[in-house]
């Protein structure tokens, strides 16, 4: 019940934020130098054509009418037509979304899989070689720009060793899975995995390093709490003391920071996509900006804003799950 009420409340707040995002995105067009019609109309367009185009797109209406129109259209998932592709911007965006989601999820999995055990081991073997190794790794990891890391991975693993492909996606996870289930062929999953491995390591390394650091420091702090001694005194096996009791409480600060770092994940995805020519939202938005494809720019920004809000609600719910003392005022 606590969770349901909280989710309702957070969703309401989220909708407010999304509305703010939409407004800001809408206004972005008006602070940009140059008239919108200049980007839409062909260079040799006659004044009449320009006039007609402007009327078609509603560019002559007062700004508040344009704003109202924009919101009404958005509510019907109509983001306008992409100037670049000539298709509805929403179609273009949602076609690219799975690639970005796959990348972000894969990177998160990579990060959680490596960082939490590494952080726990580091904290429990303090001042031993493995601790120094983990601390050094996390320092370098949070200090390395991920696009450069991606390029180095391409250089070493792709170019020099020739082990893995270094660009593009070829097949999505969904189709690859269908191939496996309906035709029993593993080639799809294999190709998918080969292509996503380097990008997800590139995107995941910063988070692996960050969470390792947070886990280590958090564990060290928690291990000094007196409940740990009590738990040991009642004869609980050490693995349970560490993974059930201590780690559970360490998750609270980790989740707080992760919530604040979600923007980094999305921003990192944009640049990782650019390094690996990954056909996701990131490469889409860069193309759209370079060609002033307004509907596409606005649509992508709104989708990213909504994604960010959703992720944050999930993070807050997780936070609440791990920390029963929170009531969220």
């Amino acid at each position, binding site marked *: 019940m606590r969770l349901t009420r909280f989710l309702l409340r957070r969703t309401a707040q989220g909708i407010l934020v999304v509305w703010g995002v939409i407004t800001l995105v809408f206004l972005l067009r008006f602070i940009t130098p140059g008239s919108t019609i200049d980007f839409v109309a062909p260079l040799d367009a006659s004044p009449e054509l320009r006039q007609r185009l402007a009327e078609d797109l509603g560019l002559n209406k007062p700004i508040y009418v344009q704003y109202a129109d924009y919101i009404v259209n958005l509510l019907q998932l109509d983001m306008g037509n992409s100037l670049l592709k000539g298709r509805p911007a929403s179609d273009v965006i949602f076609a690219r979304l799975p690639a970005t989601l796959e990348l972000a999820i894969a990177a998160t999995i990579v990060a959680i899989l490596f960082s939490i055990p590494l952080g726990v081991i580091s904290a429990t073997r303090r001042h031993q070689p493995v601790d120094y190794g983990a601390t050094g790794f996390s320092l370098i990891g949070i200090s390395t720009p991920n696009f450069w890391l991606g390029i180095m991975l391409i250089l070493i693993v792709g170019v020099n060793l020739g082990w893995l492909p270094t660009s593009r996606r070829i097949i999505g996870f969904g189709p690859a899975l269908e191939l496996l289930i309906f035709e029993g062929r593993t080639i799809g999953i294999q190709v998918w995995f080969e292509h996503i491995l380097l990008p997800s390591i590139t995107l995941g390394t910063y988070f692996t390093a960050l969470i390792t650091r947070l886990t280590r420091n958090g564990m060290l702090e928690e291990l000094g*709490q*007196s*409940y740990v*001694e*009590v*738990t*040991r*005194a*009642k*004869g*609980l*096996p*050490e*693995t*349970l003391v560490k*993974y*059930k*009791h201590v780690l*559970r*409480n360490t998750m*609270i600060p980790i989740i707080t920071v992760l919530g604040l770092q979600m923007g980094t994940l999305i921003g990192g995805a944009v640049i990782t996509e650019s390094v690996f020519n990954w056909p996701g939202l990131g490469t889409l938005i860069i193309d759209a900006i370079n060609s002033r494809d307004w509907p596409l720019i606005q649509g992508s920004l709104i989708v990213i804003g909504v994604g960010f809000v959703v992720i944050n609600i999930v993070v807050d719910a997780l936070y609440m799950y*791990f*920390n*029963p*003392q929170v009531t969220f005022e």
Partner: protein
Amino acid sequence: MSDDVILRVSDLSTRFFTTDGQINAVESLSLEIEEGEVFGIVGESGSGKSVTARSLIRLIESPGRITSGTIDYRDEELAEAVREDYPEAVDGAFVDLLAIPEDVHRSLRGTAFSMIFQDPESSFNPSLTVGEQIAEAVEVQRRASSNPRSTRARTRSSAYSLRSYAAAAVLPGRGYVSSDSKDRAIELLQQVGIPDPEQRVDEYPHEYSGGMLQRAMVAQALAGEPDVLVADEPTTALDVTIQAQVLDILRDLQEETGMTILLITHNLGVIARMCDRVGVMYAGEIVERGSLGDVFDRPTHPYTQGLLGSIPDLDAAGGRLQPIGGNVPSLLDAEMGDRCYFADRCPKAMEECLEKPAEYPAEGTDDHAARCYLADHPYEASQALPEDYFEESEPP
């Protein structure tokens, strides 16, 4: 006599190796605790009482280490079970708790002996329900008794491991390994007088008051039906009225189950109310021990005399130690030297006190003894040390 002894500590030393130097928190401590009694250890803060308690259940963490001694625990079945694998740990019916490996020792925690800690608020994990934490202790006990007293059962965790926890975490009613253990947790909460235990069992520590948490901790400690309960300042953090309630519960439970209690406190009132026998601790040593009557009515060691002399009414719940002039020694090895540690505060310090005193029987019986030259010798003013003796010879 040794038939009744359940815990025999000899020559126990626990040291902490810090950057400031070596700290001798417990120094060659010896004591015997009889089955079914309440034994009290009383001393000022910094005298090493809590470290003694933690040494008994081997919960000393780096930079601390138990450097010498034996802690013999009487349990015939256990002795039988470990005799083959660890013959050096077994002496008749006694098993040296410091000579068995960690996993065997761990299986004894909660079942053979358990512990109540000082500050209930910080002694529970804030993110798990109280019930779940008590149920854990129940599960631990079940593991040990499922195959009673065999080394195999004690070393291989079958009922409650990380795997079963992981399984329980994804199943509904997460946290409890079984509904039995939850029922048992409710029962235990009821036993220590928590109202509405069915509802309280699912609440989190922050929803409990301090006194209720301390009762819950007693319940948790009792989950494994321990033979020996170590209570380290069980009432210090509580209000005076609640202190009395918790002590009553402990006393009742002790009479009911016949368990042995080792009660550690700085509160003389608590000792007087609860204990059969008592040991007075100073600078890591037991300086006087005997029955409650012997020690409180006829104190022999000048330190004990000082402690008691400053308490007008022993039965007052707030009867705290009003120690003698001067400070508790730092316990830093470098500053301790080889003399009676109390000599610099002792009004009757003599030249003999510059050597470390042995334990002398007081009143001619070994049941009451003091680590003081005067216990067995008359005081001679001619040999008294000048009052400023230690100020001159000791570094500041």
